[in-house]
């Protein structure tokens, strides 16, 4: 095996020396959970990723005949299967990995850092990985949970004021659910509001106990922090307990399927979004035309343009842009070259699909911009402009947490 690989490598090297620069097939490992916990997002998200990569190959975005291939595997949210899938994809030459699963990402983070492979954790994962000096190969890419919480609080401030108001944060009882805690703590002092946390047990199919407490608290705003089926339950139970939909603000994980599950009373609920939804965007239009209509789509056509589909498209748009920049000058795309490519991205907005992002060696979050959108009964309508809320505070929290991590390891 090793001998054969060496032989192949040597042959490739010799061939590479004699021939002009050969076209490269860039490989991305999309090793996600299709069957266990993250099923609410993975299907549409991964479909968007694969369709966008098909578009890249159809249009030759990477130039010089370079192509990109996705290695897609199910990990079932099990770390040991994630480790296997990672090692295998690594052998197959993947330089970028997207696990979309907290336990799997956590189990592989160190190994990927040691292997100098890029791991993207778009809109999920640990927030302090935004500090590129401590986590050089991890890219949260879009607004972290901390930035999302700040954006929602800022929106409350702009729409109804914060001073003296009460915010209830109703969250799933897990590390993910507790993410906004530090941001709320810091902002409550700055903006003079009070808040209280109401956890409910995972997976959140039953939340009546938490919401009857919330009702007694009489909040002015409600922040819901969960994912999957629990989100629809949150919205429904909130409304049953006399909370108006307009008061409800959600983390990024609230989408069209949840709205369908809640029904017409969902109208007015707001959520954070890192990418625009809908099909009215140049990239999505071209996917429709060159990939879907050409019969090369990777899933149900009805999903095109949903929130998670577009999020998937945006992740790959940024990753492909990074790969393109990393390969400039004809060098092969290693993990290091890809990281350098990411850090060359400045003001990239995927033709308006998302806020402009700029990555530097320090900031792997890309600014943390986003906006708030409201469900109008049919679709998500943006109610604020793309921008980053409280960027200094978020940066400070990121750096403190990263410094703590660096000190411990």
């Amino acid at each position, binding site marked *: *095996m*090793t001998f054969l690989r060496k032989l192949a490598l040597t042959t490739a090297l010799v061939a590479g020396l004699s021939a002009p620069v050969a076209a490269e097939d860039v490989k991305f490992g999309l090793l996600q959970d*299709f*069957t*266990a916990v993250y099923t609410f997002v993975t*299907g549409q998200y*991964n*479909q968007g990723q*694969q369709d966008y990569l098909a578009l890249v190959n159809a249009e030759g975005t990477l130039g010089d005949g370079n192509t990109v291939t996705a290695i*897609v*595997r*199910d990990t*079932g*949210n*099990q*770390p*040991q*299967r994630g*480790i*296997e899938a990672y*090692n*295998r994809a690594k*052998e197959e030459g993947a330089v970028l990995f997207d696990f979309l699963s*907290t*336990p799997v990402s*956590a*189990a592989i*983070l*160190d*190994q990927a850092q040691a292997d100098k492979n890029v791991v993207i954790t778009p809109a999920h994962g*640990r927030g*302090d990985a935004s500090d590129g000096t401590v986590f050089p190969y991890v890219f949260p890419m879009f607004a972290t949970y901390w930035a999302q919480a700040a954006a929602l609080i800022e929106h409350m401030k702009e729409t109804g004021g914060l001073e003296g108001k009460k915010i209830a944060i109703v969250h799933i*009882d*897990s*590390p993910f659910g*507790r*993410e906004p805690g*530090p941001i709320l703590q810091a902002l409550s002092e700055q903006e003079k509001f009070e808040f209280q946390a109401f956890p409910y047990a995972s997976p959140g199919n039953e939340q009546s106990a938490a919401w009857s407490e919330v009702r007694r608290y009489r909040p002015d705003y409600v922040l819901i922090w969960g994912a999957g089926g629990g989100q629809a339950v949150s919205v429904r139970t909130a409304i049953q307990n006399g909370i108006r939909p307009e008061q409800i603000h959600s983390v990024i994980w609230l989408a069209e399927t949840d709205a369908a599950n809640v029904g017409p009373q969902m109208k007015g609920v707001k959520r954070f979004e890192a990418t625009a939804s809908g099909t009215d965007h140049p990239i999505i239009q071209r996917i429709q035309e060159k990939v879907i209509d050409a019969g090369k789509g*990777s*899933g*149900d056509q009805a999903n095109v343009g949903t929130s998670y589909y577009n999020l998937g498209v945006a992740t790959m748009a940024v990753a492909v842009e990074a790969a393109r920049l990393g390969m400039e000058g004809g060098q092969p795309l290693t993990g290091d070259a890809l990281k350098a490519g990411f850090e060359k991205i400045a003001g990239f907005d995927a033709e308006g699909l998302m806020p402009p992002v700029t990555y530097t060696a320090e900031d792997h979050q890309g600014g943390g911009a986003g906006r708030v959108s409201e469900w109008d009964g049919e679709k998500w309508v943006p109610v604020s402009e793309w921008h980053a809320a409280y960027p200094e505070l978020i940066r400070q929290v990121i750096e403190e*947490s990263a410094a*703590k991590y660096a000190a*411990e*390891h």
Partner: protein
Amino acid sequence: MFYRLSGTYHTSYQADRKLWKIPTDRWLVIGLLVLALLAPLYVSPLYLGSYVLPWVIWSAAALSLTLLMGLAGQLHFGFAAVMAIGAYASIHLVRAGVPFELALLLSGLISAVIGAIFGGAALRVKGLYLVMATLAMQYLVDWVVVNVPAISGGAHATLRTPAVSFLFFPIESLSARYWLALGWAVLLTVFFMNVKRTSFGRALVAIRDKDFAAAVIGVDPFRTKLMAFFTSSFMGGVTGAILAFCFYRAVTPEQFGFNVSIQLVAMVLVGGLGSVIGSWLGAGFVLLAPIFLTNLVSGLAASGWVPVSQNFLSHLPLMIYGAMIIGFLLLEPLGLAKIYDNIRKYFLVWPFRHARS
């Protein structure tokens, strides 16, 4: 024929009590052991790190659980929690400056004590009711780990294992981690085979078969049941520590969730209750079959054999896997161990047809 019996005489009690009385069995075991020891030399890092190493560790876990479920007949549906206690205890002990060797033992002891406390429920309840009691342990331990930042490691609940050495060998390279895990699994295997021949082992079996009948013949159910939970939890705790240090190297609460407990029970059942070889085969099957199937189906899809959506593609291996479990259990309810036993017995007298026992 293949397991040649002729010329093999047991002339002393000692010879008759050997673990492997038939030379072929002995040579098979020695051969497998040598192959396992030399694995880092001929297995590629991909297969060693992603297949063989987790298989060895989960076999140790299945052995720990089958001592309780197979030998003592006490159902345990919260065994992942026992391993979690071992994993977290060992990491915090090492971080506090305790040498790794000692930390392994102490983490085993901590798991054993906590496991035995929950096992106390077994003194009053049996069967499904005991399942409920052990489930409570699973959820309580999960809750404590998630809600006590001092245990889980703070906001992101990921705790990295510090660099350690075992008897002066640094446990850093893949081979070193593999050998340590293999050493522990072999130790457990040998212990398990021997415990069946001790008075303690026979007491466990007596309790399993009928606890008040065992009490009548002088086996103390109180002591024996507690000892069963204590021993099994000790083994599980150390296995949890080995899992953390040798395989994951960064622990999160999800690694020891309820679904892992169910996987462990599945390993023990599919392999064959109370069987050593069954624990190894069961762990290998439950752990590796989904991975092999996923890769197989993805390979077929890539070559255009099964043109289906990604979603169906991901669920297809699960369907095959489920069908395989049902198939195996229909074919042989006593598990994979019994299937091996049938094959062995067939060859024991081959080319003749019948074998005694």
